[in-house]
């Protein structure tokens, strides 16, 4: 609790630092949560692999941004060996890729991550998601949980369990005599997240596909009658979600850290935000996302880093509890 005193009487300017840091990551949380709400609203699939998609996008941007071959000298040697055993051709292919791969700045890696993740989302949809849409609610949760396990373990095998940051190489500014430091890249990422959100919302509102997605969300049967290929809409929605997650991950890799097992926390965050805001409530998602980011940084500072994770899950339980009380008011017996 010593930090509490520090925050409110000794150095109140630290509050600005915490709020800013919270807002920067919160904007990215909101992005991933919007993707979750999209998939949830359109095809009623609760994607527990949301965080893993985010982390995967982060790894794509990070991998593109480094210029040393990563797969050498990392404990994931058996990953390479696996491919050497089963696919002899992959040895020169991987070597070529590692040799030729230019170091792309992570900001330029962001669109690449989006495109790759869009394709990945399409494959995942065709393999798994399209089979769970019409099943009961728990099926989609558990199937995507299995998917999350697979993705995080593959990332761990490929890149190792170390915490990674995609270095942007931009300057760090300090304010208030060094009490508050903000990296330029964080501002840039905040702007990028904003632009991305505007693009996605515009797309949903005005493009033909966006209109088809909204129509399918409202009434899939009527949409089919009107000639919309709902199966394609579903596939596109999930891929779009994966692409949004990929972008969020690329941003996270620049402003925060990525690690193969951090995905679950991102999934929980997305669920907290969506549950707090409700489906189809874009301003709510943005406010909840920013609020969650700030809350997390405050609790991390006041209670210690040990309890930062706890804050996320604690907030989830709290939000669900509050929702439940709200709903129980509607469930009064008829008099």
């Amino acid at each position: 609790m010593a930090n509490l005193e520090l925050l409110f009487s000794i150095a109140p300017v630290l509050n600005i630092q915490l709020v800013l840091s919270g807002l920067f990551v919160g904007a990215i949380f909101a992005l991933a949560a919007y993707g979750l709400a999209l998939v949830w609203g359109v095809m009623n699939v609760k994607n527990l692999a949301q965080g893993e998609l985010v982390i995967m996008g982060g790894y794509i941007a990070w991998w593109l941004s480094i210029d040393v071959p990563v797969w050498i000298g990392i404990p994931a040697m058996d990953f390479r060996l696996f491919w050497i055993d089963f696919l002899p051709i992959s040895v020169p292919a991987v070597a070529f890729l590692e040799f030729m791969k230019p170091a792309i700045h992570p900001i330029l890696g962001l669109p690449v991550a989006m495109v790759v993740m869009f394709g990945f989302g399409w494959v995942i949809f065709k393999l798994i998601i399209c089979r769970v849409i019409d099943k009961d609610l728990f099926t989609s949760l558990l199937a995507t949980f299995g998917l999350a396990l697979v993705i995080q373990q593959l990332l761990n095998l490929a890149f190792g369990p170390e915490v990674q940051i995609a270095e942007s190489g931009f300057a760090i500014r300090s304010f208030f005599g060094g009490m508050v430091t903000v990296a330029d890249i964080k501002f840039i990422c905040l702007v990028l997240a904003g632009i991305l959100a505007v693009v996605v919302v515009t797309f949903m509102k005005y493009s033909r596909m966006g209109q088809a997605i909204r129509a399918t969300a409202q009434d899939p049967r009527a949409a089919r009658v009107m000639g919309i290929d709902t199966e394609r809409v579903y596939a596109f929605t999930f891929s779009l979600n994966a692409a949004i997650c990929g972008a969020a991950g690329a941003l996270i890799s620049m402003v925060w850290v990525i690690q193969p097992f951090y995905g679950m926390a991102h999934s929980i965050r997305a669920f907290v935000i969506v549950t707090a805001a409700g489906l189809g409530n874009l301003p709510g998602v943005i406010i909840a996302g920013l609020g969650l980011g700030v809350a997390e940084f405050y609790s991390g500072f006041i209670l210690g880093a040990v309890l930062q994770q706890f804050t996320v899950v604690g907030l989830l339980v709290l939000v669900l509890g509050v929702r439940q009380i709200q709903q129980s008011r509607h469930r009064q017996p008829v008099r």
Partner: protein
Amino acid sequence: MAERGASPLIAVGRWVHGLDPNMRRIVLYGCILAAGISAPFVFEAYTFAIAVLWVMILFALTWDILGGQMGYNSLGNIAFFGIGMYICAIVQIGLYYDVALYTAHDGAVNIHYTPEQYFTGLALGIVAGGLGAMAFAVVFGLIVFGLRGPYFAIGTLGVALAAPELIGAWDYVGGGGGISLPNYPGGPDERSRLFYYLCLIFAFATFGFLKWLYSTRFGLAINAIRDDEEKAEGMGLHTMRYKMIGWSIAAFFLGLSGAVFGNMIGFIEPLEVAFPTVTFGIFMIVMCLMGGKGTLWGPVIGATLFHTIKEVTWAHMLGWQWVALGVLIIVTVVFFQQGIVGWLKNAFPEWYGITVDEAVSAESDADIAARLTRSEAAE
């Protein structure tokens, strides 16, 4: 039929089939019990693995109370396992020492328990673990039972993920560093056998209790909640009470197993041993789905199959075992959700006493035809 009876297995099968149902049941349980009791002597090197198998069966059975029979899919039942484990440890140590002092010295303080002290502590600890987990179930139940469907699953997952974080930050019980439990006052073989039999007894007790429970009104009530909770409430069932009792029962047995498991390992810490949400917490669901949820035998069969496959293949997969586990979850959930017992029920309904009375169905067809003719004639 006679020409297929060559193999001795089929001969045994026919003999079992010829027995009357009660006798058949006694033979089956007797065989399993005999195998369970003799296992630590016959397969001495695998005592621990088989003990874990009994714990797994208990896991799958307790998950099925809510997940299968009541339709409330919890992702966080493992929390009670860890709570039972920690309560047992606190009771065992706290009876004779100051827990905070014990954990602060982190094993440097060399403590000796007389056999009497040890066994008193263990017995009280196990009982306290079960009852404590039950008490926590009631508290959690108040928070999560208003939630339906996916919210319930996510809420319970949240509880299970929050528990190790909280315990890891609590220095009284050793925080993230964990506690080592009192040393067993006896030889290692004796120790492993004692905990093996405790696991065996608890698994059997769970099975027997649930078998009785599902045959009572309670079983019907929780099935009604699964089929349609609103209607069940409308019929005058106090659904909240049933949900609470069901969860408390699951928590009680999970707490017992956690208390025993912690002592069997000898050292407990929050993330890997006490609250292994991503391993045991998910295993229990996968085992249940594999065997067939909503049935008494499904969890047992699923747990046995899963644990055997896991023990045989796990060590040979060099880091790929988790990927395999994820794929297994996806395949089970997406393609084989009815499970082994559910599939058997579909394929061989006559084994489960579901028969089609040819006479009745033929008659009703004739009735329909007659009615159709009559209505046509009326027009």
